[in-house]
């Protein structure tokens, strides 16, 4: 992690560290605000009462195990959920505009222009029978009304800006002719083509090898600093979180269980699940005595969530109180209380013990 941490320090100048105002109060630079979002099928809810907001220039990381509803939250924010998944309740406002009031064609105008998404497996997310340059140019043709030749020229510039060597040649390549890392750069170029106000990266670096991952993260940060976009970054890798996040929302079994600034979260995790995730990280410096820490058990299936706190069956601190669902609330006793919220009955105890 040393490379990542060094990188992070060097990028700190780009960050905002001012205290975050109370939730719900619309700030002028709030790009995306999700309130009480619930998404699910007829049988089960996969995302429950999720509230998030992200401001211009800020990076929010969504963290959690697979199946916690991180990706689905992002898809719902883009209005990309499709049958059988439906948005059951909640409000998504983007630049102050309620997305649920828009028709599909109006949403299409926003997508790709003002909000863009980068998917996990770039090679699968690109059309296999279209040249990558054309796939990038298409965004410009559709949203900016450029001609194909203008758009292709700009696509080549975009490919150069994401660090692809021989961009003019690569623009004529098909996705299968490029490596996974190259394709991810293509995806990024495509997402940034119209300089969106919001960039959602869904496990954008997970499928890549570590060195490529570092390059891509660095690239995304640079481009974000340049465009001032808000970014939501989904990952289950805490190393990536430390590298890129301003704020973090930890999700478990469809709910947000803890939100905090990145420093606060790493210093003082207040939810047992977050603490478990932290303990699972492998440290080169600490001796592990040959054992790797793990959270026992698995994420419950959305149709069979336990009563009360969903983490209860796996939680070392669980008690009778946990049969009641803990609310996500500001935890008193630490600085900037409102920035740090957790959904655990014992969060205050952890806060006191930690400080």
């Amino acid at each position, binding site marked *: 992690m040393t490379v990542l941490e060094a990188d992070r320090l060097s990028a700190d100048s780009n960050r905002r560290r001012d205290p975050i105002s109370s939730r719900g109060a619309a700030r002028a630079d709030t790009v995306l605000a999700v309130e009480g979002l619930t998404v699910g099928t007829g049988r089960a809810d996969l995302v429950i009462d999720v509230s998030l907001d992200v401001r211009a220039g800020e990076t929010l990381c969504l963290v959690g195990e697979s199946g916690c509803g991180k990706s689905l939250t992002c898809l719902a924010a883009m209005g*990309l959920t499709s049958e059988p998944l439906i948005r059951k309740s909640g409000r998504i406002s983007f630049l102050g505009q309620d997305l649920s009031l828009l028709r599909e064609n109006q949403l*299409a105008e926003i997508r790709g222009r003002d909000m863009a998404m980068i*998917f996990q497996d770039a090679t699968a*997310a690109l*059309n296999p*029978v279209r040249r990558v340059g054309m796939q990038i140019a298409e965004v410009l043709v*559709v949203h900016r009304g450029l001609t194909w030749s203008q758009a292709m020229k700009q696509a080549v510039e975009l490919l150069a800006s994401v660090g692809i060597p021989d961009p003019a040649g690569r623009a004529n390549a098909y996705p299968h002719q490029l490596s996974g890392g190259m394709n991810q750069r293509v995806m990024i170029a495509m997402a940034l083509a119209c300089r969106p106000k919001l960039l959602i990266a869904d496990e954008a670096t997970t499928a890549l090898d570590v060195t490529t991952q570092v390059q891509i993260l660095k690239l995304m940060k640079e481009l974000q600093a340049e465009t001032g976009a808000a970014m939501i970054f989904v990952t289950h890798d805490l190393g990536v979180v430390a590298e890129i996040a301003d704020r973090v929302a930890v999700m478990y079994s469809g709910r947000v269980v803890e939100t905090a600034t990145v420093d606060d979260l790493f210093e003082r995790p207040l939810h047992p699940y977050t603490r478990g995730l932290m303990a699972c990280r492998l440290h080169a410096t600490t001796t592990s005595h040959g054992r790797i820490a793990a959270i026992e058990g698995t994420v419950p299936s959305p149709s069979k969530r336990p009563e009360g706190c969903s983490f209860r069956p796996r939680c070392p601190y669980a008690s009778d109180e946990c049969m009641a669902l803990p609310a996500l609330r500001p935890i008193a006793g630490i600085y900037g209380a409102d920035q740090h919220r957790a959904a655990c009955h014992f969060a205050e105890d952890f806060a006191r013990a930690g400080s």
Partner: protein
Amino acid sequence: MRLQFILVKLVRGLLTMLLAVTFVFVVLRLSGDPVTMMLPDDTPAAVIAEYRAMWGLDRSLPEQYVRYILSAAQGDLGYSFRDDRPALAVVLERVPMTLLLGLSGFAITVVIGLFAGIAAALKRGTGIDHAAMAFSIFGHSMPNFFLAILMILLFSMTLRVLPSSGGSTWWHLILPAVTLGIINAGTVARFTRSSMLEVLHQPYMRTARAKGLKLTRRVTSHAIPNAAIPVVTILGLRLGALIAGAIVIESVFAWPGIGLMLVNAVGQRDLPVVQTIVLLVALTMVVTNFIVDIAYGWLDPRIETREAKES
């Protein structure tokens, strides 16, 4: 690499044609003597022998076969027994009519099949989907001659709007072409639908939506180019089947193409004409398959690289 690919295809194609011709050659000669069938019953034996010698039927079967293949390789397909003209010339006269019918039917197949298949996939589970699939099963399970007869009953006998037989005007083309088109469109529609459904669930279709592309563009620019790859195969196979199907359709509608000619020639034991037609049909199949192979590489850029990597 490229040259080797073409050579292999060429050899395979020639083998296919040789097999077809050989089969027909043997079966025709085992199924009765053309001379006795063509000449009146009271023809003197000497005349019969003369005819047999003229057409080379007095030689042994292997000898006839070798002579036929050798001259066919030089482009000489023999003389029509009935017409006394080169069989190839006799057949080629009728080829334009079959091409006209076959290609019209094919165009109808493509338009209806693709349209129904794409609409069914996009409106999955709705009335449009059910209607398209019901139509598909109808086309698939309906014997072509039976549909042909139904068409004649409805449009020629009852409504009296279209002619039922012959090929003298454009009006005559409508019924056989539509019959041929509908029969094949069912299969194409079904194939297109399943191919589209698979493509619509691919991650790149979600990307297309995330890029803010509207439905029309997502379908035309992203879904169809991918879905077309398997559909082209079935269309290629159908083009071959269409020529075969045209034989039946032509006889029902008395359309003056090579299909009708083939049926008549078999009845009359005009062996060179039958063999020539079979050879042409086999050639069509081979050429169509070759075109499909070429179209593959053009539609799916991944294929060429895969071949390049293998060799």
